[in-house]
């Protein structure tokens, strides 16, 4: 843990969890606002909160369980201990969330493409607010850099602050300018940003496939590869097969 400031101490209050919950509520209200663009019954639009909530739970569950294997010091410990100390990884949560919400939308006859397009700004807003939780909770901090900027001494690289600015900017851009293919654009821009910012992270990043890159960088590359392959195949299909 690396605290925001010696005077800001929340003690045992679960500030990260609290901010995450607030983020979930704000994201839901943004989603409700964006659902005005969709022509569908009010009942269906209201009911989606249940599927979002369940997908959110599945996402954080998957992210917690995968962390048991990323951090070897947790192996062999009792399950409750692992659940409490494994923490969460955004990427595994995102993948679990996207897969489960797609399944729910398909099961309950929603138009997946249309609804997913409107869900993306809520994901970036939720993530941005979640990063404020990281900032206040003292996790996800940057590497030691010791830079003097405008009479301010910056001890650690502001990874959380950059993430917050990036994610809120992305939310505004999605809300104001990009109205279509948001998921693909998000799945290109965020992994690119994450891949770069991970070089400046100072916390224990764990180990997934290699020792060269952190788990998040490896997943960023994997997502970029899948998205680019998808786009190439889509382009080929449109150009030659239709």
């Amino acid at each position: 843990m690396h605290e925001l400031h010696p005077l800001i101490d929340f003690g045992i209050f679960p500030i990260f969890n609290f901010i995450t919950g607030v983020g979930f509520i704000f994201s839901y209200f943004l989603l409700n606002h964006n659902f005005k663009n969709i022509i569908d019954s009010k009942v269906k639009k209201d009911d989606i909160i249940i599927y979002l909530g369940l997908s959110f739970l599945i996402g954080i569950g998957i992210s917690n369980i995968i962390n048991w294997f990323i951090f070897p010091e947790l192996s062999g410990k009792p399950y409750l201990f692992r659940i409490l100390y494994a923490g969460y990884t955004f990427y595994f949560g995102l993948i679990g969330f996207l897969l489960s919400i797609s399944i729910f939308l398909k099961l309950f006859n929603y138009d997946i493409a249309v609804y997913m397009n409107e869900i993306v700004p809520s994901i970036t807003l939720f993530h941005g607010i979640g990063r404020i939780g990281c900032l206040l909770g003292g996790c996800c901090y940057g590497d030691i850099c010791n830079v003097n900027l405008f009479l301010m001494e910056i001890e650690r690289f502001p990874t959380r602050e950059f993430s917050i600015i990036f994610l809120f900017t992305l939310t505004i851009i999605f809300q104001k300018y990009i109205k279509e293919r948001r998921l693909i654009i998000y799945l290109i821009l965020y992994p690119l940003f994450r891949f770069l910012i991970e070089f400046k992270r100072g916390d224990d990043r764990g180990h997934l496939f290699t020792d060269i890159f952190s788990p998040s960088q490896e997943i960023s590359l994997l997502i970029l590869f899948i998205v680019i392959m998808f786009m190439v195949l889509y382009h080929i299909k449109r150009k030659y097969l239709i």
Partner: protein
Amino acid sequence: MATKKRGTSNVPMIMGIIGSILQLPGAICAGACAAGIGGAAGASQSSVNETASTYMILGIIAALLGFIFGLMGKKSPVVAGVGLLIATVLSGITLITFNFFSLIAVILFLIGAIFSFVQKKEEVTV
């Protein structure tokens, strides 16, 4: 075409989410406090561990129920109300270990449950 009564308030959802978030550390506190109380009373180590796990699991179940039924506040107000009441009772049981987070969660779940029952309803055709 059948008609169905649906809720209109976001309060059960908000109370369910915030309550479950506070109930999670409440569950950990409940487990730790139960272990402490059991240890002080001179119970055996296995008995202390078992009590701690029971209280922690009860707390986690309460948090999950509060979250899920809170989200159902608009779709099925009665089911959500009953579910939030069950979450209130389960959180209330963990209150025996005197933890502050569970107390807040109990209050929030109870407010959510009351709002689920008394919220303004609208008739919709299904």
